[in-house]
């Protein structure tokens, strides 16, 4: 009895697959690449996380010792803390700014497309390089930002922008906002396009002012798009690398070291010592953390889906 049923199901599955032959063929490049460049690296890293390995000698199996060390590694957890702070602070600044710009630029006025274009320009530059420029702009001795602020009388002594963790993180947030606001603005613009103008019309008729319209209509109607864009922003903030590396290299001390940098340091900057295995363990844990955080966020904001 069971075998007949089983055979039947199997046959149907096989028939289904054959039926989708063209489709599978069309997806073959993607599937192969995903396996080779997505699954394989993950398995590689997972494998070596149980070893002590320096990249070219024989790896030494040490079981869970890397993970045990990881849980007691206060520097790592410090980097997790820094990453989380970035994951909150950056979206907190970027989303309102880009949303505001999107709303402003959604109206028709002269120079609208020029403004949109110019605001997007910072996003097409290379973050690795512009971060270095920002480093010099914010230098405490003779930096131009300090110079301008002093000339304007806003401050009377030069600010040590990279003097402590908080300040340095502020600079990072500023830089990320500068670089990313154009990108998220454009995404929000597209989300705004999907709100029919009749809704705004009827709101005006009802006598709603700008602020009321914004919070009462615009945001709720964007619903799931808002959630998606914000999730994207959070995820990118958690995966930050180029900007932080070029701006502060984790400094001062390690108060701005984020998880990605910690991983990179142990993979690529500890040559000669067998840290690749440990770096692998760190990678696995960090990936899981990023996933958990994003999923938690998605769960919590589910009610935004109308």
């Amino acid at each position, binding site marked *: 009895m069971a075998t007949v049923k089983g055979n039947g199901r199997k046959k149907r599955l096989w028939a289904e697959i054959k039926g989708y032959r063209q489709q599978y063929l069309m997806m073959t490049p993607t599937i192969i690449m995903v396996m080779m460049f997505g699954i394989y690296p993950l398995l590689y890293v997972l494998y070596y996380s149980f070893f002590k390995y320096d990249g070219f000698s024989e790896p030494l199996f040490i079981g869970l010792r890397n993970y045990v060390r990881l849980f007691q590694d206060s*520097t790592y957890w410090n980097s997790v803390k820094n990453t989380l702070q970035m994951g909150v602070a950056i979206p907190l600044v970027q989303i309102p700014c880009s949303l505001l710009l999107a709303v402003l630029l959604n109206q028709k006025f002269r120079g609208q497309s020029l403004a949109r274009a110019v605001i997007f320009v910072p996003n097409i530059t290379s973050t690795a390089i512009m971060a270095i420029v920002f480093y010099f702009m914010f*230098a405490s*001795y003779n930096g131009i930002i300090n110079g301008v602020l002093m000339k304007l009388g806003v401050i009377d002594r030069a600010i040590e922008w*990279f*003097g402590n963790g908080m300040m340095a993180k502020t600079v990072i947030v500023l830089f990320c906002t500068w670089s990313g606001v154009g990108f998220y603005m454009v995404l929000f613009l597209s989300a705004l396009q999907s709100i029919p103008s009749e809704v705004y019309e009827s709101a005006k008729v009802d006598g709603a002012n700008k602020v009321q319209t914004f919070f009462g209509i615009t945001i709720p109607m964007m619903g799931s798009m808002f959630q998606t864009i914000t999730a994207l922003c959070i995820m990118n903030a958690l995966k930050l690398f180029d900007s932080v590396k070029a701006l502060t290299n984790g400094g001062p*001390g390690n108060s701005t070291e984020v998880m990605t940098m910690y991983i990179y340091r142990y993979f690529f900057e500890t040559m000669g010592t067998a*840290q690749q295995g440990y770096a692998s363990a760190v990678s696995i844990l960090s990936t899981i953390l990023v996933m958990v955080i994003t999923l938690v966020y998605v769960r919590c904001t589910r009610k935004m889906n109308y």
Partner: protein
Amino acid sequence: MKRMKQFYAVVMAGVLVLSATGCGGSKTGDGTTTPVASGENAASTKNKTESSMVAGGVKTEIRIWTKGSGPDEGIQKLIEAFNESQEEVQVTYEYYGENYTSVVQMAISGDSAPDILECSGGITVQTLAKQGSLVPVEDCVTDVVQENYNQSAFTPEEFYLNGELYSVPVRVSAYRLLYNKDLFEKAGLNPEAPPQTLEEMREYAQKITEAGGGETYGFGLPLGVAQIWERVIDPISYATSDVQRYGWNNVTKSYDFGANKKYFEFYVDLMRDGSLFPGYLTLGIDTLRANFAAGTIGMYIDGTWMPGSYATQIDTKCNWDAAPIPVFAEDRADKYWAEGGVNWVVTNGKNVEAAKKFYTFWLENQTIANTYMPVPRNDARANDLDALGVEDLNLQGVEYSFKTDDLDIPKFEPHKFISLEGDDRNTVFTNLFAKAAEGTDISAALDVAVEDLNKRYTQGLKDAVAEGNIAEESIK
């Protein structure tokens, strides 16, 4: 719609055109295969072209990789001399700056390692030798070399494996105090009398900062350099006690980072005095040097190889000199720490004989290199001040930079062979310094950190011995 099609068409056409023309030129072997991107100047490229065109016969090409921020005149001229002296072996060299370690790591695992490479920045002779990537260079140490070289060039254990010699360092590198004579004068100090004790140095730094009125500062401490504490603590510790680099007490054969404490606290005091050049927490070495050259920093500690750079490569506007690093008044300075620098090794590749031929030439002709890039070398003949061309180059800080008789190269430094769990001493200290900069009192934290460092380094040492990375005899 139509514009879209046009766009795609243009892109496709562009790609086709570019691939047709561009790809052809990249890989043809026309003799001058070193990409211009490595930064050789036009002159040496031209030389190479001419000599390779003249040769015509069977020619072996040797590639060398070094760690450097820019083309080293000394190395270039030496290579030119070699290339011109014979035709069978032609040498080219490339330099990589910050990424040197990764470059070599990738090249070796990718089987594209050069014929000769410099062991530095984390790449050690021992690691490569153990892997079987190197060949011994005993036969390159000719009589000429034996006679003229500083004997301590051959003592460090790290250049040997199983009794075979794999590398000979050509330079002697140590750290000295560099100070700006103009700023000394301005602050009312005697420019010919650098500080002899650390207490004096602190006082002088304060005076210079005061006299500067916000434009100049007394001392530069580049905490953006990861290994900074190697430069500002270890040499002093080495000269005045048994504690060598990275807390290794060479007499008790154990770790004692407690000895570093008083020096660390000294720098914290400097910071609290306000004498440190601003931005010190993330200050990089380039910015520091540029500012020193421009005359905005009174004193800082740097390597004995810098006079050459300040004379030839940086636009130096101030009058400066080098002096021995001060010690505390209660201590007496014995010999300062030094290391053999620029150790090249010959890899186990296809051109071993040719590479060795060059290696011998390299060891014997350091004088040529010093004429163009003056740095203290193991070859006594090269250190001859007359040979250095002092006048033409505006070479400063010569007296102490080329003085090698108060230097000592240690035989064995365990930290190089330890795979440490957690942050190393430098990271720990820099983090503590950052906390101190915020105003917190770190004396308790410092004690805790020292204890922890002792524990972890000792554990790392035990593991290294257990895994065979360190021989028991070395630490007896």
